[in-house]
């Protein structure tokens, strides 16, 4: 496998930034990714759970916009 070149890295960063929709420039994105790494490790625990039968605690309430203001 060829070693990643700086230009490849930049291309990957650009694709990543586009996928994420982040306006951060490459240098800032790298810094944020580094800060996020330990948090991602924690969030990664969620991926080990099989929760297919659990409804998430997010419920759309179609009547909400019909409430009177006060």
């Amino acid at each position: 496998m060829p070693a990643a070149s700086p230009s490849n890295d930049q291309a990957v960063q650009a694709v990543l930034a586009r996928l994420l929709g982040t306006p951060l420039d490459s240098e800032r994105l790298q810094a944020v990714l580094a800060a996020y790494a330990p948090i991602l490790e924690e969030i990664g625990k969620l991926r080990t759970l099989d929760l297919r039968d659990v409804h998430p605690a997010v419920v759309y309430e179609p009547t909400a916009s019909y409430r009177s203001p006060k």
Partner: protein
Amino acid sequence: MDALHWATLAQLKRGLDARDFSSLELTQHLLDRIAVHDERVQSFIHLADDALAQARAADRRRHRGGAPLPLGGIPIALKDNYQSRGMPTTAGTRATGIEFSHEVDSACAERLRAAGAVLLGKTRTHEFAWGTLTPPVANPWDLERIPGGSSGGSGAAVAAGFVPMGMGSDTGGSIRIPASFCGVVGLKPTFGRVSRFGIVPHSWSLDHPGPLTRTVEDAALVMNVLAGYDARDPACQDQPVPDHTADLGRGARGLRIGVIDNHFMDRNAPAVQQCVEGRLHELQREGASVTHFSMPILAYGLAAIYAIELASSGAYHDRWIAEGRSTQYQPDVRALVEMGRLVSAVDYLKAEQVRAVMAAEFRRLFDEVDVIVTPTEPLTAWKRDCDTVAINGIDESVLAASWRLTYPFNLTGLPAISVPCGFDDDGMPIGLQIAGRPFDEPMVLRCAAGVERLCATPRRPPLA
């Protein structure tokens, strides 16, 4: 009558009703005290220009024989993320181009005003209520230590005798953490019990408004003012509002207490662990029963709250990030809001699934017990500029340590209170946390009042 600045809401109300002193005298006394001591504590970011005018109006109303109001003429403080008429709101940020209304009252400010309170000023918060430090506020018990956060200004102001009540907001523990560290009472009500209208959002499904007070009775009195439906808050629920003071004197006899051994009781500083266990034994001697449980899903709680909180605040700040305004935020807050886009939608929804499982687990426990008791914090307030703390020889980041025992009740939306229960060897306060069923604040307050009665005469921080 205790010195005015240490008096509780209940004592102040009695004194004002009996005309022992006027609201103007009380308000001036507290402003004088703030002028002398807050240079060191730094709890207020703004004092209301019209505080004395509000007090005069309260006195005039009383002299005219107007019906007594629950907080008539009593000065209180709002955290600087509550919008309020006539006072600036910064949410702790200095970023330019981000402004909040000073023409609209948040629902809480509106209710407190209607109850007769004098809105004395705004207390400091860490930027956008993130984090646990609330710079530059000092802990009145030791000015070298943090007050906890993000409602650290309110915690410090109440502990220092500047106001008998300060409002806080709690997304992962931000009312209960400063309450524990500053030796005051902090109540995070059930999600949907108190309207969030007009509070600068941190994370929509985790934010809870609530009071910090010196006594449990005062927290109950404030809840009688704040609780109730408000259609302007989509999460607010139209539930009956009880008298939150009604059960305070019922004591511990017959109270069924649950203790969750994993997560809450397995990694605390020895002084905290001993203090909380001691109070549990005393409650048992007074007739409460204690049942021990295990809840393995708590191992996924940190992951869940990270995913929800980062994604939510990322969405809230998205426009400001795009406009480059987040570059002016404090470095830690900037990084946290800019991380929001890194949380995948799948991870976010799995976090919401974990939340549902956790809520069901607590529901199962509450079939057998009335309240859950835990320490509020695994340790007491630490010195400024610490990034990590050692608990039983294991290093942990201050953020991870400070909200470990509080965030489960933000994820589940259950009511939870921190009540002072003792001191460590350095003289720093220890808090005991009590959580209950949804909308069962009266039971939580009853248990908290029982703990409060076990404690000796309250100590005061070493301010003059």
